[in-house]
């Protein structure tokens, strides 16, 4: 069965084949495979290294991006604040200007109104005054003045002690110069009656004082005519004046009228100056919400 020559030949053949394949096949293929594995390992390591580098760069870029984002947000916030402040300032300016203009306008209006009312008032008063004056002038005469003098005496008599003292003091301070103003020429007996009455008044007082006699003797009464009194009598020293006349009454009326009209005007002006409508709306809230 076993051909020993063939067996030996086959052993030799096999050994030759081992040598051939070892040279042509295993060495080369294994070497190539090892090289490739090494190559792949190197590339893998390189890829790993690059991946790590890329990740680091990514992290750095991410960080930078976040910083930029934050910086941008800060800048935006700052700009928004600045714009808000500027807008507030502008709004304030505009509001102030509008208020100011409104105030000026209101003031001008009030001034116009006041001027109109004053003119009107003055006209009314002048008219009333003129009418009264004309009426009284046409009524006034000497008889009426006599009546007024009597009335003046009655007033003097009705004076209290303090008032008398004040009049006396007034006369004393006037250095004895005393002027009686009337509208019409007084009769001499009327003048005498007045001098007597005044002298009597002072004497009454002086009787109680120290230097009354000297004064009573030197009392000089000067009588003058003043048509603008309309009808009446006034007692005047250098610094004081008392009396009763229709002109005084008219002046009192005019003063009262003036006062009442002024009060009315003030009340009217106070009502008008109150702001009725807010002219400038507050746009800040809506603007802020849009911006956010």
């Amino acid at each position, binding site marked *: *069965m*076993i*051909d*020993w*020559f*063939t*067996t*030996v*030949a*086959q*052993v030799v*053949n*096999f*050994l*030759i*084949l*081992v040598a*051939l*394949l*070892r040279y*042509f*096949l*295993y060495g*080369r*293929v*294994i070497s*190539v*495979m090892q*090289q*490739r594995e090494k*190559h*792949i390992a190197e590339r893998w390591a390189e890829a790993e290294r690059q991946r790590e580098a890329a990740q680091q760069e990514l992290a750095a870029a991410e960080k930078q991006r976040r910083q930029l984002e934050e910086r941008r947000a800060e800048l935006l916030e700052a700009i928004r604040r600045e714009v808000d402040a500027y807008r507030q300032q502008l709004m304030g300016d505009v509001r102030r200007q509008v208020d100011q203009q409104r105030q000026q306008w209101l003031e001008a209006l009030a001034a116009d109104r006041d001027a109109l009312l004053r003119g009107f008032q003055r006209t009314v008063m002048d008219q009333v005054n003129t009418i009264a004056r004309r009426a009284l002038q046409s009524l006034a005469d000497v008889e009426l003045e006599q009546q007024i003098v009597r009335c003046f005496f009655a007033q003097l008599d009705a004076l209290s002690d303090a008032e008398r003292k004040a009049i006396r003091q007034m006369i004393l301070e006037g250095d004895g110069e005393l002027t009686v103003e009337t509208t019409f020429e007084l009769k001499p007996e009327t003048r005498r009656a007045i001098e007597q009455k005044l002298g009597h008044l002072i004497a009454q007082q002086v009787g109680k004082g120290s230097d009354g006699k000297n004064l009573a003797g030197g009392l000089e009464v000067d009588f003058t005519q003043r048509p603008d009194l309309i009808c009446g009598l006034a007692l005047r020293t250098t610094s004081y004046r008392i009396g009763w006349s229709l002109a005084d009454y008219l002046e009192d009326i005019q003063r009262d009228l003036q006062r009442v009209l002024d009060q009315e005007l003030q009340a009217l002006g106070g009502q008008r100056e109150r702001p009725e409508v807010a002219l400038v709306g507050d746009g800040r809230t809506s603007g802020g919400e849009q911006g956010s």
Partner: protein
Amino acid sequence: MKWASTNTDCPLRKAYMMDIQTLSPDEVVLWQWGPIKLNYTIAYTWLVMVGLTLWAWLATRRLRVEPEISGWQNLLEIVVGTIDQQIREVAHGAADRFLPLIGTLFLFIATSNLLAIVPGFHPPTASLSTTTALALCVLVAVPVYGIASRGLLGYMKLYLEPTPLMLPFNVIGELSRTLALAVRLFGNMMSGAKIAAILLAVMPLFFPVLMHVMGLLTGLIQAYIFSILALVYIASATQRNGQDNDSSHLQQEGSSHG
């Protein structure tokens, strides 16, 4: 020098004559000069050798290191890589020393067995002389690798284990497993070839195709068993005590196959 003859002078006729009566391709002698003769076994062995060498040479001419490789190189690398991996699994690393021997055993046997499907091809592995030669190679390789790995004394001590009483049995085991290697491969291949020849004579259609497919499978399995057993023998002779268990386990497994 003359053409030796059995019955006829024509080689083609001889190929035809290689039939049921002829048990081994050794018997078909093509050329003889004294004791030196060229029979089918040697001739087809040369054919296989030339084919394998040519394939290796052509395929390894333009090897590329880059990952993009040709299909031939891919096949080559799969074959060599698989053998390499098998050796590493059995021998626990150090595959480089065993790869030429074990790899060539596998490639030679597998190629011979697979080419049996080609009409007119007579696998040299169906000759007991060839399988004996291969088994002898393994028989010699075991002590060579063992002594190279453990030293002479270290290797010799393996025959005295577990006790010196086991020495005869170890020697007998060594010889018998070599015999088993040779006879297992021969028996399988010879029977495959004979069954194919017989079936061709009895039932020429369809059924031989099935048998050929089975023959391919058997051929590959035998190549695998032969080379893996050789590897186990060599590995068990070279490895340290701690690793011997795996090898002996595989050895038992391999013995139960053929």
